[in-house]
């Protein structure tokens, strides 16, 4: 039943389904995102492509900047904390954030432990490359999962790999005999009850979005085709030539991803896409942070 906080927090992710969550760095960008039809925004000081370019330690954004974005839009506002940074998470909860992303995009604060998200009232979304990571984050209290992809690259290959990996592992788990699930839970390094849930239901117990490297309407449609329940777009929008137009096109592509005629129209004359970096050209593998 939906009586408790954990269930209410999973429910909010259900309301975001079929939508696009966009990274924004200013109230103006947040308004552009909302006007384009974003179902939520992620407030951060620098988008992943710039974090990648600038190097150095990347931290939670200034709460004043996040509040500015909360005041600018009526849709949910999310913000990122470093992996394992309990204090940053408390700060975001104190400013009444709608969702916290415990994110590998920022520099990790803890190389062993993630935040015990069950101790918080505010919901968390976490990245995962595979089923084991996804279920460990859910055990810690994540109310929503997204693929890690490789943020700030504009290269969709890792998001695709992570989504396919997760779905393949889910299918494998479903195909097991009941008495084999104990061993599978051990192999995945996850609690048995979560492995059993996936075995019985054929899906994660929370909503699963795609993230990391989505840059075009076709990328968004591809991720929906592969089973994503919605899409995060980080650098892809505000690193492109015409953000408002591209943002609106990605929203429509996510809603009607099966309609190829529409996708063809949406993909026309969008201006310059973000330049992008191929996965074998990058220095920092953000997806490797936090297993």
């Amino acid at each position: 039943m939906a009586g408790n906080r954990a269930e209410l927090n999973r429910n909010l992710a259900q309301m975001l389904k079929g939508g696009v969550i966009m990274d924004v760095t200013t109230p103006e960008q947040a308004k552009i995102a909302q006007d384009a039809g974003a179902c939520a925004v992620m407030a951060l000081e620098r988008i992943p492509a710039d974090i990648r370019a600038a190097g150095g330690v990347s931290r939670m954004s200034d709460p004043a900047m996040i509040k500015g974005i909360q005041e600018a839009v009526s849709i949910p506002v999310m913000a990122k904390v470093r992996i394992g940074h309990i204090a940053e998470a408390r700060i975001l909860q104190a400013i009444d954030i709608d969702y916290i992303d415990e994110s590998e995009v920022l520099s990790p604060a803890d190389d062993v432990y993630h935040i015990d998200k069950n101790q918080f009232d505010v919901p968390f979304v976490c990245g995962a490359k595979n089923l084991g990571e996804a279920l460990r984050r859910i055990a810690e209290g994540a109310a929503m999962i997204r693929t890690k992809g490789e943020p700030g690259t504009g290269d969709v290959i890792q998001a695709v790999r992570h989504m396919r990996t997760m779905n393949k592992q889910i299918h494998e788990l479903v195909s097991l005999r009941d008495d084999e699930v104990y061993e599978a839970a051990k192999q995945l390094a996850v609690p048995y009850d979560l492995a059993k849930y996936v075995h019985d239901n054929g899906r994660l117990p929370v909503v699963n979005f795609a993230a990391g490297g989505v840059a075009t309407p076709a990328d968004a449609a591809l991720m929906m085709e592969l089973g994503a329940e919605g899409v995060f777009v980080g650098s892809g929008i505000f690193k492109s030539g015409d953000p408002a137009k591209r943002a609106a096109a990605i929203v429509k592509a996510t809603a009607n991803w099966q309609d190829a005629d529409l996708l063809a129209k949406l993909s026309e004359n969008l201006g310059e896409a973000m330049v992008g970096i191929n996965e074998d050209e990058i220095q920092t593998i953000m997806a490797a942070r936090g297993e």
Partner: protein
Amino acid sequence: MVVAVEYISKEESDDAESAVHGVTGILAVQGAFAEHAAVLDKLGAPWKLLRAAEDFDDSIDRVILPGGESTTQGKLLHSTGLFEKIDAHVKAGKPVFGTCAGMILLAKKLDNDPNVYFGALDAVVRRNAYGRQLGSFAVTANFGRPGFPDYIADFPLVFIRGPYVASVGPEATVETEVDGHAVALRQGKILATAFHPELTDDARIHELFLTL
């Protein structure tokens, strides 16, 4: 509870394809539309997702407007051409059920947002009336009044960044109140709830909608 895996790819109920009428069209541009489909399956009622204008065919007798982000849904309603189809349906006095964002889309006026969508429900609705996600909550309340037809006792109400009704016009009837605020309204064949019956195991309000 997340919906079963088959609803991630299911576009209509098994019996909807051959149906000539009696199908519930579920607006499916963004939000928790699959959850409504799961409830209708439980009740054995045919349904079909409405993703584009051409999905709204003659078999559609009633419409559900699900929860989600009303600004997102509002934009996609117009760009898909579904707005005109559903607007004509509502104006013809046919049954429509809006939950949360759906209530916002149906309202005549919003008191904290200049947008008006279908403008059919005689009420002023306040978006995000309980604040941000930390204000989301669940309670149990009655729908309707004891002794009157369609009374539903002890219904679980789930509010997710929900709206409430700031004021009600003479055409609409309040069915449920929480802390003195109207959260469920009925007006002819329009049913609107600020909460999400589709997120619970309780199908009684959907059952009532199917009789309208």
